[in-house]
């Protein structure tokens, strides 16, 4: 029902009150003059669609309001300990920031305007000052900013210059290590972590929603009271003070929204909107302070808590965790008492999804290139409960329905796969896969649990905690509500290590000598020498940057410790320590390594061409590589034809495993531990880091040209090099990496929808997923090939050589079809191949 018709009903209802014989189920109001659940759900769905459309076209807007408050607070409270100072910043924003309501009955936004994003100069100012002079560009296009706002940004950047986390990390590094990361970053070896805000992984939403903030405030007040007043304890006391300031501020924000909704309700002429606004005000007065009374309040409470996390620090990687499963009790109660339905829940989830879709951040071009705007909001479905049973609830299915209907790029859905998931649920997941959205992603629940035992054995992980595992970002895994998500360093480029090995430690593009002297490869007499040189570079470079990573986290803890985020972990509240002091129960403390497959393919080419077939000398190969293959077309063809990862070739599969094992061994050799008892890990995935590092990496023996993208994921094939079909690729991907030792793996697979047609296609996809997991694969996601992709394949067939079209009794590679036939397949693809 549109708003206009609802209004008409409403007016009729008012005029004919007490007389109407109309079926009351069609009226938007119940006996108490409140909107019926049906009417409200319809409005939810309509609002979500409208907002989604708006967001798809809206440019991100830098909201500089934060900067004015930030400067004021630092000037006023500069004398306070950092943790309290940070709480004051949080408090000021939540009490003063501009609020607005849109059509969404789920209330609250990070910034003061639609599609607004914050800047955090207290983390790093280099990029701000450098990029101020050029147009600010994010993944969504140009970020708009007025001259006046630009001036404010400049003022803030200048204020924080020298006293931000990035500067602090570099000062510490100069003092303690004599190490300056500048050349290493320029050469594209790694990225720093201090200058950039990151997401929270996952905080204990379940506990907070259930208890309400008031109860947590009481708990913290008790803890504060019982701390003996000694000098030794002053840090804990400061922490509790900061936590209380932050929690009260969030409760205040909800009340401000309640007031705003109430004020707008008084102003509006539309009786339906008035009733809706009054409900919104009522809900915001109740949560997140108190335990929710129904499903809607639980959802609103969740969003307020999440909003707090994001306002304190916007960044990529904030998973709602098993959202459906911990909201399930509210839903069931609401269903039993008030008759709400799955459809109602779906419409409310749509409201949440567009809230998450609106969320964004801007942190300069490096981050924009690395993340492509991914915000890592991953909702987990499936998995096991504490007793080891299938944990799926009804809302897990509703979340799939929501995404099938709405199709938003954020949040993403992850299925924690195990063999006990029900057939209906799995088939619905495939239905979502068919939309071509690239969701859900599939993760191996058993492997994640093993991984948590391996990572947290020394932290005494319990079986219940291991079973409560989740994907907490893009592919990083941890324990729901207990694992903190921190980068040791941002990301690390394995392909650069190989480049350095091939140039005796000198980066060919910048000329910086950042690697170890491993010798002139022209003198290497066998492949083992090449591999050893590569391995030595990895060892040397991890040993160089890992201590810097520890200091970066020290600097973050010194300059920007987060009180609110820390308060959401029970172990931090118990210990009175924030997350940078090791206060949490478990840590996912990591560096992202990427371009492993480019190393594998390059080493495979060297082994094959120089040492086995001896078709080219190392000297000739390096000349061609150094010339970016210009004038060496035939050498490049040899390189491209050499064996590649993704074709179930046992020799290459073993080489891939060796490359990854070597990385991990060398990572471990640097005895670096920032948090006592918590170990750091390598996460092997890409976001779009492969694009960013690709711009800074020279030509490779795999045949890849300089300054072009590296390979995505960590076990995906380089585009166009998997020519033995999807199953060969799946087998190679499952074998390429030790998915238990590694924090994650990342596998993107392309499918033409012809392979997924019908229920038979669905079951085949499911058995493919199972077979991958049976071999130890831990992550897989599918890009169901779109007609756009096929058009690209028409234009550059070389990159899409493996793309097959499956029809009974017939097989062909797409790129080998006639143009007319290709066009026909594109048309059929648009019809979803039914």
């Amino acid at each position, binding site marked *: 029902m549109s708003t206009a018709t609802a209004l008409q009903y409403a007016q009729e209802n008012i005029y004919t009150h007490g007389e109407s014989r109309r079926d009351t189920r069609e009226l938007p109001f119940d006996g108490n003059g409140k909107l019926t659940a049906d009417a409200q759900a319809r409005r939810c769905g309509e609002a979500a669609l409208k907002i989604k459309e708006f967001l798809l076209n809206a440019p991100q807007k830098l909201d500089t309001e934060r900067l004015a408050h930030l400067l004021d607070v630092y000037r006023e409270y500069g004398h306070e300990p950092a943790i309290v100072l940070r709480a004051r910043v949080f408090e000021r924003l939540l009490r003063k920031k501009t609020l607005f309501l849109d059509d969404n009955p789920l209330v609250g936004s990070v910034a003061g305007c639609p599609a607004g994003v914050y800047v955090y100069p207290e983390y790093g100012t280099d990029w701000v000052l450098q990029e101020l002079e050029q147009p600010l560009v994010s993944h969504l296009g140009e970020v708009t900013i007025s001259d006046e706002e630009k001036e404010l940004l400049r003022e803030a950047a200048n204020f924080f210059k020298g006293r931000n986390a990035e500067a602090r990390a570099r000062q510490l590094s100069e003092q303690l290590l004599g190490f300056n990361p500048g050349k290493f970053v320029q050469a594209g070896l790694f990225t720093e972590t201090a200058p950039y805000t990151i997401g929270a992984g996952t905080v204990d939403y379940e506990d907070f929603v259930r208890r309400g903030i008031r109860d947590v405030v009481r708990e913290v007040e008790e803890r504060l009271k019982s701390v003996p007043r000694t000098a030794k304890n002053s840090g804990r006391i400061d922490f509790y003070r900061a936590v209380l300031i932050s929690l009260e501020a969030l409760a205040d924000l909800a009340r401000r929204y309640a007031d705003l909704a109430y004020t707008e309700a008084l102003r509006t002429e539309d009786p339906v909107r008035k009733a809706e606004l009054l409900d919104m005000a009522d809900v915001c007065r109740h949560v997140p302070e108190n335990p929710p009374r129904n499903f809607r309040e639980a959802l609103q409470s969740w969003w307020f808590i999440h909003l707090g996390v994001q306002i304190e620090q916007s960044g990529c990687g904030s998973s709602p965790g098993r959202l459906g499963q911990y909201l399930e009790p509210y839903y069931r109660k609401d269903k039993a008492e008030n008759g709400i339905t799955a459809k109602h829940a779906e419409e409310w989830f749509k409201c949440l999804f567009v809230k998450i879709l609106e969320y964004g951040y801007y942190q300069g071009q490096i981050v924009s290139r690395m993340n492509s705007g991914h915000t890592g909001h991953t909702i987990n479905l499936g998995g096991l409960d504490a007793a080891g049973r299938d944990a799926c609830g009804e809302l897990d299915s509703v979340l799939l329905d929501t995404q099938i209907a709405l199709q938003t790029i954020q949040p993403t859905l992850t299925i924690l796969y195990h063999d006990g998931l029900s057939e209906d649920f799995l088939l619905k997941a495939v239905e979502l896969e068919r939309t071509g959205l690239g969701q859900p992603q599939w993760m191996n629940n058993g492997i994640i649990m093993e991984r948590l035992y391996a990572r947290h054995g020394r932290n005494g992980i319990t079986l219940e905690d291991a079973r409560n595992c989740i994907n907490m970002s893009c592919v990083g895994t941890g324990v729901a509500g207990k694992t903190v998500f921190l980068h040791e360093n941002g990301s690390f480029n394995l392909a650069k290590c190989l480049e350095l090995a091939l140039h005796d430690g000198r980066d060919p593009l910048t000329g910086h000598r950042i690697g170890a002297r491993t010798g002139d490869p022209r003198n290497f007499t066998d492949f083992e020498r090449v591999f050893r040189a590569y391995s030595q570079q990895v060892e040397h470079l991890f040993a160089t940057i890992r201590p810097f990573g520890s200091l970066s986290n020290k600097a973050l803890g010194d300059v920007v410790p987060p009180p609110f985020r820390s308060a959401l972990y029970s172990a931090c509240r118990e210990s009175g320590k924030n997350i940078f002091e090791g206060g949490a129960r478990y840590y996912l403390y990591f560096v992202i390594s990427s371009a492993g497959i480019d190393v594998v393919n390059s080493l495979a080419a060297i082994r094959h061409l120089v040492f086995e077939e001896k078709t080219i000398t190392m000297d000739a190969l390096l000349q061609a590589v150094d010339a970016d293959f210009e004038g060496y*077309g*035939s050498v490049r*063809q040899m390189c*491209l*034809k050499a064996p590649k990862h993704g074709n*179930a070739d046992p020799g290459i599969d073993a080489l891939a495993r060796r490359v990854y094992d070597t990385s991990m061994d060398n990572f471990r050799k640097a005895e670096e531990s920032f948090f006592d008892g918590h170990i750091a890990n390598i996460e092997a995935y890409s976001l779009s880091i492969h694009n960013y590092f690709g711009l800074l990496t020279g030509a490779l023996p795999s045949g890849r040209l300089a300054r072009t993208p590296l390979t995505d994921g960590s076990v995906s094939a380089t585009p166009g090099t998997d020519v*033995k*079909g*999807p*199953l*060969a690729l*799946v*087998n190679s991907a499952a074998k390429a990496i030790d998915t238990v030792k590694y924090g994650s793996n990342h596998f993107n697979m392309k499918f033409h929808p012809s*392979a997924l*047609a*019908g*229920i*038979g*296609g669905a*079951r*085949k996809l499911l*058995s*493919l997923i*199972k*077979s991958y997991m*049976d*071999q130890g694969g831990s992550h897989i996601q599918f890009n169901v090939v779109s007609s756009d992709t096929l058009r690209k394949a028409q234009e550059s*067939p*070389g990159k899409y*050589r493996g793309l097959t*079209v*499956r*029809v*009974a*009794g*017939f*097989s*062909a590679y797409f*790129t*080998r*079809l*006639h*143009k*007319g*036939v290709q066009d*026909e*397949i594109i048309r059929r693809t648009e019809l979803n191949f039914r």
Partner: protein
Amino acid sequence: MEHLTGIIYNIQRMSTEDGPGLRSTIFLKGCPLRCLWCSNPESQSFLPQLLVFENLCSGCGRCAAVCPHMAVTAKNGRYNRDVNLCRDCGACASVCPAGARVMSGAEMRVEEAMRVVRKDELFYRNSGGGVTFGGGEPVCGGEFFFALLEACRNEGYHVCVDTCGCCPAEQFSRVPALADLILFDCKHMDPEAHRRLTGRGNRLILDNLREALNSGVPLRVRMPLVPGANDSEENIIALAALLRDFGRDEVDVLPYHAFGSGKYGALRRELPPFQSYGPGKLEETLAGFARHGLKAVLPSEAFGA
């Protein structure tokens, strides 16, 4: 039997419509029929052949440099071949960097083929899949085909044979005992029409079909559905009558598609004189099956449950 060799032109891993589950389809080269609509024209000859995909040619000219038969032709910066001079030796394919020249068909030993097949056994197990023999006409692969079939059986794989039925009765009669499933193509019921469309009559084929149906082996009758060639009412009635004798009321239909036309070009052959079904036309034709008591099943639905 291990030493036997045959010509295989493709082992397609992850076939999804040639039997239940995820399968590897072994395509044997060579077929006695010459169906006008054939979507795999390279499968007809029993010998390896060169395919030239002119659209992929990068114009490097390496083929011309190595061709021992002077069969490479050039036009507008792209290279092709003179089919009268080309001997399908494959010298050019081995140097073509763009993959525009590829050899279709390679001699393989039983064990070589089995090595490829074994790679996906986990997928067979999890999906209830296995191995399908296609072609060409696989039964015409003779002892090599039977050795490969037996090797698959010995490994416990579900084995399916996709046949046109045009092969000597003595050979064909061995198949039902060895296969777990037969996909049997029925192209036309009228002998003369069959000869016109495929180059041969259908007596042998129908005899083999009856024998297979009597044997009790699981079997699905398949019909390539070609507009204007075999989708007439009379043909559907005749097929329905034959199947009714065996208590069957279902046929798998494979609607004609032009996806093979690139391969006709690659062989420098004329394109088949058919158009695929336009919007609504297929539904109309399938309704004709229903009118005569035959349920027409599309490939994506054939192995669903």
